[in-house]
C-alpha cells in the first residue's frame, strides 16, 4: 500500500505554517488520499490504477501548498504577492547592488564591452557575475519558502536586472527621438551592449542560480513514484 503520509509530507514540505499546524494538515490530507485509495480498491479497481487515480486528486502540489498556506494564514492575495515576489525581489536587488558596489570599490576585474569616448557604457564585472547565481538562488528560495508560484520564484531570481531593463527601455526611445539634442548622444550599438552587459548576462547568471534552486526544491518536495511501505 502506498505510504500516503510520506507522499504528502514530501510534497508539502514548503508549507509556510508552524510545525504543529503543518503536521495536522499533512495528516488530514494523507487520510483523504488513503480513504480515496481504499474506496477504489473496494470498488474493484486494481492497486496501481487506484494509486494513479488517487494521485490525480492532487495534480498540482505547488498550487495546493500555496492555497493552503494562504487559507490557513488568512492572508489575502496582496499580502501573498508582497511575501512571494516583492520582498524576495527587493532582497536580491539590494544584495546584487551591494555586491556590485563592493566589486567596483575594490576595483576587481572587469571587462569593458563598449565605451563612449572614455565613458564605459557596458561593463562586465566578472566577480559580480560569479556571485550573482547565489543571489538568484536566494531570491528563488525566499519566494519558494513563502509559497510562491513558479513565475514568482523566477521573477524573484531575476529581479535585480529588471530596473536596468526598464531604464534601457526608457533610454532607447528617448535617444532615438532626441539623439541630436543630447550632448553625450548614445549610439544604438552602445544600447545593445548595455542590454547585453546589464541585462542579458546578469539575468542568465541569476537564472542559473534560481533555476538550480527551484529544481532542487521541487525535487525535494516531489516524488517520482509513490513511495511504498
Amino acid at each position, binding site marked *: 500500500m502506498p505510504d500516503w503520509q510520506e507522499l504528502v509530507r514530501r510534497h508539502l514540505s514548503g508549507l509556510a505554517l508552524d510545525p504543529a499546524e503543518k503536521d495536522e494538515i499533512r495528516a488530514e490530507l494523507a487520510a483523504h488520499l488513503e480513504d480515496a485509495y481504499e474506496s477504489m480498491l473496494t470498488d474493484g479497481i486494481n492497486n496501481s490504477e487506484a494509486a494513479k487515480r488517487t494521485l490525480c486528486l492532487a495534480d498540482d502540489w505547488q498550487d495546493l501548498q500555496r492555497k*493552503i498556506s494562504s487559507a490557513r494564514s488568512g492572508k489575502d492575495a496582496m499580502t501573498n504577492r508582497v511575501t512571494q515576489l516583492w520582498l524576495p525581489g527587493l532582497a536580491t536587488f539590494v544584495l546584487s547592488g551591494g555586491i556590485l558596489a563592493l566589486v567596483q570599490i575594490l576595483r576587481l576585474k572587469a571587462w569593458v564591452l563598449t565605451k563612449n569616448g572614455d565613458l564605459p557604457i557596458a561593463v562586465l564585472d566578472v566577480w559580480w557575475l560569479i556571485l550573482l547565481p547565489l543571489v538568484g538562488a536566494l531570491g528563488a528560495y525566499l519566494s519558494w519558502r513563502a509559497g510562491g508560484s513558479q513565475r514568482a520564484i523566477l521573477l524573484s531570481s531575476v529581479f535585480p536586472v529588471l530596473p536596468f531593463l526598464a531604464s534601457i527601455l526608457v533610454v532607447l526611445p528617448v535617444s532615438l527621438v532626441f539623439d541630436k539634442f543630447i550632448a553625450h548622444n548614445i549610439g544604438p550599438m552602445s544600447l545593445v551592449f548595455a542590454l547585453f552587459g546589464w541585462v542579458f548576462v546578469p539575468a542568465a547568471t541569476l537564472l542559473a542560480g534560481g533555476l538550480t534552486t527551484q529544481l532542487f526544491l521541487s525535487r525535494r518536495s516531489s516524488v517520482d513514484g509513490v513511495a511504498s511501505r
Partner: protein
Amino acid sequence: MIGSGIKRGSAELAVLSVLQDGPLHGYELARRIERQTNGALRFTLAALYPMLYRLEQQRWIRGSWETGPSGRRRRCYRLTPAGTKKLSPLRREWAELFRALRRLTKAAHA
C-alpha cells in the same frame, strides 16, 4: 457540465448544505457532494481543503479530530451556529441567481 467559475462560487453552498445533515470528514464530504450532484461538483484536494480552512477561519464550520469505528483518526467538520445562519441567505442568493438566469434564457428563446 458546469463551468469552473460557477463551481467555485457554489462550492461553499454545497459544503455548508451537506454539513447541515451532520458532521463529515473531508473525503466523505467530497464524495457525498459528488454523488448528490451526479458528478457535476467534483473536488480535488486543492479545491476542497483551502475552502474548508477558509470556512473554518470565518467560523462557519469547525473541524475536530475524531476516532471512527475503525480506530482511524479523521478530522471531522461540523456546521457552527454562524454557518447555519449564513446558509439561508446564501441559498436565497443562489436561488435568485438561477431564477434570473432562467428568465434570461426564456427571454432569449422567446
